């Protein structure tokens, strides 16, 4: 509140402009997704999605103003309370929430409902920033690693109970922030190795090829290195472990619920049952692919209009964009996201406190993950998981949580002149 003139002048306007560009572009696409040329309704009509989204955008602006006038220390001081509040809310959600399609995601009263899972991301990012802010906190130490992962895994466990796999996955995006904060590289190498091996075991029909490949690599490593018995035994054991893992992956997948199993298998074979499980991905790709270079023109799309793409105003909103604005539209939106994310990295790096920097990377991690996974799933690069495209997708909880997430950081960044340097 004090020195608010200085505060405003330090706001990073590029981020604000990109935010509004995405929100407004998203709003136009939400209207396009429901637009019916036979019975055109006003974009502002409250009975359709675009009208409702406009109200949510309005509420977002109010939220932004509230956040921007708050003192930056407010968020830091309250971060653990916010975290505990949302954890508590997640705990009670299954009991007081509303069940939709076997999932209990929302709480609230009447028509006002929010998804605690969406807001818990923000709370977790704040809490982690608070916990990791101590100068002595070192992520290469096992104890600190356990603390950090503990804060991370509590909401994950609760969200998996709802169950909402997609949202739960988002929390692991904070590994990007952990990386910045010094979590040893070997974890990431190991992690990517596992992911690669997992994908290979799922993607390659005949596991014998994979076994042969692993065998060959182990053999080469043994031959080119020095030939001590110890080395040979270690490599052989690793090789055997990989083989065992790849078989166990197939086994685990076969034990997954059918709909998840199918979502994974469709990724490797999109033509697998295009009218059944592959429907979403197939139709989504058709919609986007039919857009061509410049798109069919605003409101001229046919695929997204006529419900060929399911959930297309929420998680598959990118289809409308791809169909009506073509690759050029994709380029603009992806360009905006990349610019925003890079800008946020630069902003995070200029923070004087560890809390601010860590929170900044938390924001980057969450936005990057949503952006990457959401678009990747609409074009068949990733299994279909129900996560929205930040600022773009229809829905109050998602828009508000991303808005709050982003603008807390904008506030902290704008207040950096008043912060005492505590980087260590």
């Amino acid at each position, binding site marked *: 509140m004090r020195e608010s003139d200085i505060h405003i002048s330090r706001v990073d306007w590029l981020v604000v402009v990109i935010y509004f560009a995405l929100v407004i572009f998203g709003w136009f696409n939400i209207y396009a997704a429901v637009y019916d*040329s036979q019975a055109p309704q006003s974009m502002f009509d409250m009975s359709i999605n675009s009208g409702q989204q406009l109200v949510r955008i309005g509420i977002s602006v109010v939220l932004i103003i509230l956040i921007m006038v708050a003192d930056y220390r407010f968020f830091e001081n309250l971060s653990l309370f916010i975290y505990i509040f949302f954890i508590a809310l997640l705990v009670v959600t299954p009991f007081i929430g509303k069940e939709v399609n076997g999932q209990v995601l929302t709480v609230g009263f009447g028509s006002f409902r929010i998804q605690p899972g969406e807001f818990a991301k923000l709370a977790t990012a704040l809490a982690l920033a608070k916990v990791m802010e101590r100068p002595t906190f070192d992520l290469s130490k096992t104890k600190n690693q356990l603390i950090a992962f503990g804060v991370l895994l509590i909401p994950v466990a609760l969200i998996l109970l709802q169950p909402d796999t997609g949202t739960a996955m988002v929390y692991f995006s904070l590994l990007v922030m952990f990386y910045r904060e010094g979590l040893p590289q070997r974890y990431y190498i190991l992690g990517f190795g596992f992911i690669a091996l997992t994908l290979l075991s799922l993607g390659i029909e005949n596991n014998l090829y994979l076994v042969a490949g692993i065998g060959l690599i182990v053999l080469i490593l043994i031959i080119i290195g020095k030939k001590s018995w110890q080395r040979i035994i270690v490599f052989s054991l690793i090789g055997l472990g990989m083989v065992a893992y790849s078989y166990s992956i197939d086994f685990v997948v076969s034990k997954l619920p059918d709909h998840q199993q199918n979502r994974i298998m469709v990724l490797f074979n999109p033509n697998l049952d295009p009218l059944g499980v592959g429907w979403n991905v197939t139709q989504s790709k*058709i919609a986007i692919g039919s857009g061509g270079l410049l798109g069919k023109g605003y409101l001229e799309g*046919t695929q997204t209009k006529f419900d060929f793409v399911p959930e297309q105003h929420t998680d598959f909103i990118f289809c409308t964009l791809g169909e009506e604005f073509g690759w050029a539209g994709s380029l603009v939106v992806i360009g905006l996201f990349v610019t925003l994310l890079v800008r946020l990295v630069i902003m995070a790096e200029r923070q004087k406190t560890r809390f601010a920097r860590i929170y900044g990377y938390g924001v980057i991690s969450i936005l990057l993950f949503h952006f990457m996974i959401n678009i990747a799933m609409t074009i068949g690069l990733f299994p279909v998981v129900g996560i929205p495209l930040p600022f773009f997708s229809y829905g109050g909880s998602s828009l508000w949580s991303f808005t709050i997430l982003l603008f807390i950081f904008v506030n902290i960044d704008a207040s950096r002149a008043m912060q005492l340097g505590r980087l260590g």
Partner: protein
Amino acid sequence: MNDQRPVAIIIFIFLIGLVLLTKLFMIQVMDDSFMKKAERNAIQRVVDHPYRGLVYDRNGKLLVYNNPIFDLMIVPKEFEVGDTTRFLELFKITKEELIESYQAARKYSWVKPSPLIKQISTTDFARMQDYLIDYPGLFIMTRSVRSYPLPIAAHALGYIGEINARQLERDSSNYYVQGDYVGLSGMERFYEDDLRGKKGVKYKMVNVRGVDKGPFKDGEYDTASIAGKNITSTIDMDLQKYGELLMGGKKGSVVAIEPKTGEILAMISSPYYNPNDLTGADFSKTYRSLNSDESKPLFNRPIMATYPPGSIFKVVQSLIGLQEGILTPNTTFACNKSLVACHNHPSPVNLFGAIRNSCNPYYHQAFRQIINQEVSSNTYKDTEIGLNAWREKVLKFGLGSRLGVDMPNEKGGSVPSSKYYDRFYGEGRWKYSTIYSLSIGQGEMLVTPLQMANLAAIFANKGYYYPPHLVKSIDNDPTKIPEKYRTKNEVGVDAHHFDMIQDAMAEALYGTATRAIMKDLVIAGKTGTAQNPHGEDHSVFVAFAPKDDPKIAIAVYVENAGWGGRAAASTASLMIEKYIRNEITRPELEQYVLAGNFIY
């Protein structure tokens, strides 16, 4: 401590952007298959079948109209049969039929509709409609079948049927698709382009459940179907009907032409069939049985059967002789039966007497003079030159080559040239004595009944004809019929030569066809007998009437009915009376023809 890590994160962000944009470029810009899939998804192309043109007779009475029928169509990609037994029960087909139709549909297209059950009756349609909702990929397509108020003129009108694979391939304009109906014979085939109209196309948008969401781009790309043009035929429905009555149970042809215009008034091919049988669901069954019928009811005799012209040809010989100056009305020859057989009549005869009495030796001698004009001293060579010159003159009468009637599959017949005999006997090894039977219309000459009717028209017109045709106007516009039917063809014989010929033909009835004579209506005619090596000779008669103002020219062929003066002349006389007076005053003659006992 971690300076390289923010850079790594920035690189990672760019990399993600790059991967997404590359993949998007691949599916949006590089690969256009998605665009096609999108169209197939949301935009349905609905063909709007036009009404086929109607056919009227020359007096505006309806000959052919359209009757609505329903086809059950299948899109194999969307089709799910579910419980097969139930399906077979509901749609009243056998398992074999279902498999056969389904496989045919699959072979044609996986995504485009093909007929599964064709030509469902209105009651079956109403019943099926309730079940259709349970079977994705099935829908009803409405179209119409041809119907005929009177079961006549089957050959002339022709029939329509489903386009076959070969016709589809030949269709360079890509107008037709599998399952389309096209004219396969008769006028239906000849005037296909006029009768069919133009198919229209509607593009409509459907949502994921196939629910109509209105026209695509407000119908910008839609085209309305254009109904086929109505055709007014030259056929006189009453005359045609009467002719078919007379020819019932007999084999043969009747062709009646209006001499002044070449318009075909009636064209009967017997045995005939009911054109209503060759429409609708029974088409294939009826077609198979007609096609295997030994009496060949599908064979269009007036234009496809060829016979030697016989004695009637003597009139042509007379005209050629007169025009050449070789014969005059006073030219006299003896009836020398040592040359060629003849029946008993006074001898010698002049030209008038020769026509009246159909004297064979007269023409044997006259034809020798036409052929051997001593252009060359070599008698063989002279015959060759003479034959070819004569042949040209005969062809001008429209004999021995296609007249170009507006029906498919017209046969031309033949008038032999020197080459024919060269091939047969060797060059320079044949002379008049080899070819003399041409003099009386026998031997190697073949003509169709249509050509003979046209010949009668030439006699009536005193030397010209309009090519015979079946269509008077298209969309009530007589100028829309092909130009050639409005073009006068001169036969190259001066009109005054016909005067005596016409008199002789009128007189000839008293010699050879007394049954055909009518009080107050002078018929000029000539009998003929087409020799038939396989059995009883064919009875032939050509005529025109009234002699002084010809309104009808007619040729009648009754196969295996012997002498021309009986079956053919009687039939022709009745047809003429029917057409000119529209009443039959000689019930006993009608009875005689209907009874059909001509050999005695």
